[in-house]
Every structure is written in C-alpha cells, then in structure tokens.
C-alpha cells in the first residue's frame, strides 16, 4: 500500500501558445487537507481539471493507492471516487436541490417491476439526510435558483460529498461564503477527514489555508515549486514562494511622463450588490494604471461597468472634468474611451470575418464616401498602417481573423480601438493566452501609447506584468478598492497584502 492515496507525477499540459503545466506533481494523503497554492494562472485549476478528467494530460501519470490509473472524463473520475467542486458553479437553477444533487445518477425504481422510473421519494429522503449531515437547513424540493450564490456553493459541496468520494477537490470554495458558512464548511471538512477522504483545497485566503490544511503544495508558472507541512509556513513565506521570481528585461523601458488628471471615477457601485462598490480612482494623461487583485475581485466587472457593458447604480465618470453619461459601449466609444475585453474569443474577435472587417468595425464611419459608401481602400490603408506599426502577421487583410495566432488577433483588436484615437484605453488581461514573444511586443505597444499621452487602465492577473508595466497600481479585493501603490515602491508582497483584505 502506497503512502499516498493519490499521486500525480510529471504532469504537463499545453494550450495553444501557453504551457499551462510543466512537469507538475501532487501527492495526497488519506485524511489530510492538502492546500494547492499559486498565483492566478499558476496552473492550479488546470492540474485539478487533469485529475478530474476534464482536460487530457499531454504527459504524466496518475496513481491511486500506488496503482497507475487513467481518468478519461469526469464520469470516470467520479466512479474512481474523485469529486470536484468547481470555481464556477454549474447548477441547474430551475430544478430542485434534490435533482441537482442526484443529477445523472438518479435513484431508479421499477414500476410494475419492469418500467424503470426515477424514485423521487428515495431521492428526496436521501437528499434530506445528506443536507442534515452537512448541516444545511434547506428543503430538498426547493429550487436551486432561489438560493443565494453562497448557498448554491454549499449545495455543490453537499453534492460532492454525496458521491462518497475518496478525493474531494475544492476550488476556491469560500470565495462567496460568509464567515459563518465558512465555519460550517470547515466542520464538514473535519468530518470528511475523519472518514479518510483526501481533500485538495485551493484558495487565496492565507488564514484559511493555515487554519485548515495539513500540507501545502505551491505552484508557479505551471511548475511544481515544493510541498511543505502547513505548520512550518507563515503567510509571508507562502507569498514569497508563490511569486518569487526575478523580473529582468521582461518589459520595455517606458518613457511616458504622466501629466494632469484626465479621467476620474467617483464612488462607482454596481447594480449587483456582490460586485464592485464605492470605487473611486483617477488616471493621468500618459499614465499606466495597473489594476491588481485576485480572481473574483470584480476588476473586470468594474471596468465593464465604466464602459457601459454592465449596469451601475451610482457613481460618476468624468473625462477632462466633464461628466460622461455612459449606458452602453457606444456611448463610451463616442467619448473617447476604448476597452479591450478580457475574453478575446467571446467578446473580441468576430472569427468568421476578415482582418479588415475586424479592425474597422468600430470606426467604419470614418471611411465613408458621400456619407454612405465604405471606401475599401481607406479600410485597406488602416489595415496596412496597423500591420506595419504593430507587426501583425497576416497573409492579407482578407484573411479570416480566426486563422491568426492569439497574439496577432490581439493586435488586430488593439488596432480596432486605436482607429478611434481614444484618450482612455482600458486593457483587460491584454496578454492572456499569448506566447512570450508576442507579449513583449504588446508591452512595447502599451508603453508607446502611454508615451503618446493616452491614459491606460490595465487589469492583469500576472504579478510580473502588473509590477513591470504600471506607473501606479490600484488593488481590488472583493469588489472594493483596497489601496493604491506607487509603481516604483510596489512589491509582490504589498499587492498580495492589499488583494487579500477580505472583510
């Protein structure tokens, strides 16, 4: 019998343009809570998705009880006793709690001894027992959609527990829980430990990690850094191990000189009470303001709120002292604000259209003859200008954007925004999913834009990028702005400190 209940060895996984996991490893002991830590993008979730069979590993092995196993898909993982509570919940809101918990494995009874049908009585009574066991005071027939996010999360955890698993993966389980709910979760975890379940616990909250876990494995850039006894670590040593990398020459020299304040946001609050609230900041001409924080800090939501993609209930946005009324992206664009959105595929590119169509879509009115006919040669000029300026690699302007690499797609979208000559440019994860070479080119473009006097708001989850590119850093935690750091004095520890100031 192996010392470990489950072991992952030498796991590598690449996505187009990114090596997400590079010979990572993990060893889980029965009855232990194992914290998995690392910055955003360190590969924690990817590693767990490999274990749970959502991703297929490029290389590497998984052992259970010392025996090699292959996990083909989540159903296979569940049958082997591995359960996972996802960071993004996937419940079916319109169905009751009981049905959600037993989805895909409904208890069956035979009508007249031969017609199979769902045994609702058994399902609901089992659910009731389960909810009692995990101390959740819900009616099994209550619709999941009527629960709050945190309650849904607890139901998801109950669902995972109900699978009688031997390994339970909890990916940021407490991100939306109140302190009392966290305590009851920890009680559940203690019970599971006694039953000999191995628990993988992913969280950014240091106090929780130190309180609940037995061992801590730290990852960075898809690589395994090490495993330590939790009792031998402190918050500071964990942070140092998580971010500890040298920053040399990854970023271009910046020559921008921030001028007067041009863009102000005051007391900005989302329509969604769980999202951003009372955020105030300003940005100067030619300044790069980095926006740091953990996943779920509502940075994207804040920026999308400013840009008119999401609604806000209060707050003022001013450009050059003039208040802007922004209720949809078009308003923001008309006022000289541009936003490169987080997900290139979902809200950036129009895949089946050409590079020319993609780059010109938000500035089409500039290329009209007689006020109504698009002059193709003017559009072609725009494409060529951007191709030269940003070194976009595309066979022609008629090439479909989906056939370009991620970095080149990103440059096309940046070109789309620059065509409007905006004063304020919001960049949300501008280098996500882009290979290292193209990243540097994008940094150069950003630095050049700042030098030209554009104000740049840059959300990034990469610590190095945040520290290396920002004149000033705003840090958010849980929808609030928790502080500003001057770029010259910024350090990973300072950012992490502000990013984890949960209320």
């Amino acid at each position, binding site marked *: 019998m192996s010392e470990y209940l489950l072991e992952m060895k030498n796991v590598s996984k690449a996505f187009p343009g990114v090596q997400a996991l590079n010979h990572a490893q993990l060893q889980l002991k029965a009855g232990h809570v194992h914290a998995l830590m690392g910055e955003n993008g360190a590969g924690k979730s990817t590693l767990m998705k490999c274990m749970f069979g959502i991703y297929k590993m490029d290389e590497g092995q998984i052992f259970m009880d010392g025996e090699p196993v292959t996990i083909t898909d989540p159903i296979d993982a569940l049958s082997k006793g591995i359960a996972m509570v996802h960071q993004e919940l996937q419940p079916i809101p319109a169905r009751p709690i009981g049905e959600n918990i037993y989805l895909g494995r409904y208890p069956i009874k035979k009508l007249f001894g031969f017609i199979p049908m769902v045994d609702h009585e058994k399902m609901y009574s089992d659910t009731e027992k389960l909810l009692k066991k995990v101390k959740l005071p819900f009616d099994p027939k209550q619709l999941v959609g009527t629960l709050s996010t945190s309650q849904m999360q607890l139901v998801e955890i109950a669902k995972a527990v109900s699978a009688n698993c031997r390994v339970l993966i909890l990916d940021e389980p407490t991100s939306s829980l109140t302190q009392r709910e966290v305590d009851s979760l920890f009680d559940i975890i203690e019970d599971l430990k006694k039953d000999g379940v191995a628990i993988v616990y992913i969280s950014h909250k240091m106090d929780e990690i130190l309180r609940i876990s037995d061992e801590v494995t730290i990852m960075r850039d898809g690589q395994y850094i090490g495993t330590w006894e939790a009792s031998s670590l402190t918050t500071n040593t964990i942070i140092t191990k998580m971010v500890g990398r040298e920053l040399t020459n990854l970023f271009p020299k910046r020559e921008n000189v921030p001028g007067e304040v041009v863009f102000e946001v005051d007391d900005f609050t989302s329509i969604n009470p769980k999202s951003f609230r009372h955020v105030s900041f300003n940005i100067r001409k030619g300044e790069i303001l980095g926006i740091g924080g953990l996943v779920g800090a509502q940075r994207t939501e804040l920026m999308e709120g400013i840009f008119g993609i999401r609604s806000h209930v209060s707050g003022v946005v001013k450009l050059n002292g003039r208040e802007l009324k922004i209720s949809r*992206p078009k308003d923001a664009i008309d006022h000289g604000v541009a936003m490169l959105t987080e997900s290139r595929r979902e*809200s950036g590119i*129009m895949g089946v*259209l050409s590079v020319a169509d993609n780059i010109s*879509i938000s500035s089409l009115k500039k290329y009209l003859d007689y006020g109504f006919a698009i002059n193709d040669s003017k559009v072609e000029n725009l494409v060529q200008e951007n191709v030269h300026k940003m070194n976009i690699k595309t066979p022609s302007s008629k090439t479909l954007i989906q056939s370009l690499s991620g970095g080149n797609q990103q440059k096309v979208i940046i070109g789309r925004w620059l065509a409007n000559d905006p004063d304020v440019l919001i960049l949300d994860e501008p280098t996500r999913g882009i290979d290292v070479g193209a990243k540097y080119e994008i940094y150069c473009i950003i630095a050049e834009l700042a030098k030209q006097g554009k104000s740049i708001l840059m959300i990034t989850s990469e610590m190095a990028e945040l520290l290396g590119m920002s004149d000033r850093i705003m840090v958010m935690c849980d929808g609030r702005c928790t502080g500003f750091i001057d770029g010259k004095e910024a350090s990973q520890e300072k950012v992490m400190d502000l990013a984890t100031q949960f209320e």
Partner: protein
Amino acid sequence: MPALSNTSDKKAGFGGRFLALAKSNPIVVLLVAVSIVVGFTTSNFFSWGNLGNLISNTAIRFLIALGVSGCLITKGTDLSAGRQVGLAACLAGVLIQRGDYTGRLYKNIPEMNMWVVLLIVLAVGAVIGLLNGWIISRLKVPPFITTLGTQTIVYGFCLVFTDAQPIGGFQSVYTRLITGRIGNVKGFYLPYLLFVAAVFGILFWFIYNKTCHGKYMYAIGGNEVAAEVSGVNTKNTLLKIYLIAGVMYAFAGYLLAAKSGGASASMGQGYELEAIAGCTIGGVSTTGGIGTVPGVLVGVLVFELLKIVLQFLGVNPYYNYVVQGLVIVVAVALDIRKYIAKK
C-alpha cells in the same frame, strides 16, 4: 488552422478550383448535374419558355430570400416570410381590383392607382417587419419564436380581411406590366421580373458590402457581443434587418399576385422554408456571419431548378415537399459539418 474554403488558391487551375467549389457546395453541383441529365433525357426541358418560367419564378423567390438572408446572417430566421408574402398579395389584390369587377370584395373602396397600392403594401410590410424587429431586438424573444407567432398572426389577419375568399379581377395595367417581357425572338424573351430582381440584387450587394449597415450585420452574425462592445448599435441594426425583410416580402407579394393573376390567403405558404433553403444551399451559414448575395441567387436558382426537374420527371407533385425538405436538411447538415470539423 487552414483558411476557409472560400479563399480559393490562386495557383490551382480551373480543374482545381472547380473541385474546390464542388467540395464546398456539393448540393449545388449535384442539383446542376441532375438537371443537365434530365435536360438531355426529356424533351422540352431546354426551351426558351422553360427558361422564362424559371427566371420569373426565381426572381420573386430571390426577393424573398434576400429579405430572409439578413435574418439568417445574424443567426436569426424569419418564419413569417411566406405569410407576409401572402398578406401582401391579398392586400394588393383587394386594393387593385377593377372598379367594374362584380366580385369586388370591398365595393366602397374606389379603384386605386397601382403605384399607390404598391406604396400601401410596402408600408404594411414595413410595419410587420418593424414589429418582428422590435420584438426580437427589444424584447429579446428568439427570432424563431417571434416569427412563428407573427406568422400565425399575419395569416389570421389575412383570412379575416379576405374572408378566406379568392381574389381576382385585377386591373389589367397591373398584371400586364408585371408579367411583361422584353423581346420575343423565336420564343426567346426576358421577363421584366428579371430586371427587378437584378436591381434588388445589386442594391443588396451594395448594402451588404459597402455600407455600415451591412458590415454591422455581418459583425452581429460573427459575434454579437463583440459587435456590441465595439460600439455597434446591435438593436437598431437587427430592427432594420427585419424591417427591410418585411418590405421585401411585401414587394414580392405584390409581384406574385400580378404574376398569378389572383390571390388568396393560402398564397405564399411555405415560401419561408424555400427562401431559407435557397439561402442555405447558397452558402449562407446558420452559424452566423457568413453569406453573400450571389450565393443567395445561386441557391434560389438551384432550388427552383430542382422543382422544375421534379416536374419534368413526372414526379407526383406531392413528393415535391418530401424532396425539398430533404434538400433543406442535407444542406444545413453539410454546412454545419464544415464548422464542426474546424473545432
């Protein structure tokens, strides 16, 4: 990832390009091949009369398909197209009946000028299109459901005001003009409808390729969220698309009544499916963002060709529905496969 099929390799010769075309449009090639075979095995298939007939039929269907194409390119659909055509035909018919015609439905309406009637019919089409567009863009009801509803509403109104009676006795100036033709050399002629279709084909080509509206339409089909984020007024663009579509159906209905020499509430039934089929065969993708005016023309033409071929083969006309339905499903299935393979 390889480029899509429509970026044909310049180096490939005629044979290579033909092969590539055949590969990306197998249905078109198949149907054209079948009609050539039928043409040589039956008499009278290759005749001027048949050609003129094909042109007139295609012209009206093309106008309807142009209307539907915008809906399809933006990942929508318009199931009310056929009934809107029927309503427009009936409305035109009722208003354009001769003053001295004894079977006049509304005897107290004065005899009206055909151009005034055209404007009224187009206006009604615009209102229905606007209603569709408003429900889809503002109330966010899926186009399939919206137009399924308006389809039934429109049909209901049509039955009410025609009292389910067939309508005839049109002013001859109306029928003569619309069924008019140029030339009659050894049976060869070109119907006026050909020129009407050509004008609208060019107009739509211009709108789709050279105007902001056209670019916005493709952008919405390509990625609606990205279009909205890029400052495209997606709501108004969708509204305009369904509005234009309504006007096109109305115009087609106006022409159809004259061409048929009569109208009834059942007119236009199923035309929406023919139009959708024509568009799909012609390469308008149901996954959005893809489709050209020449493609729509080819698709409609091929579909009309199919109908004539079936007729010449002496197939029981009721089987037409079976064959047409099959062609629609196969065309969409082939289209979807192109994109599945790329994931």
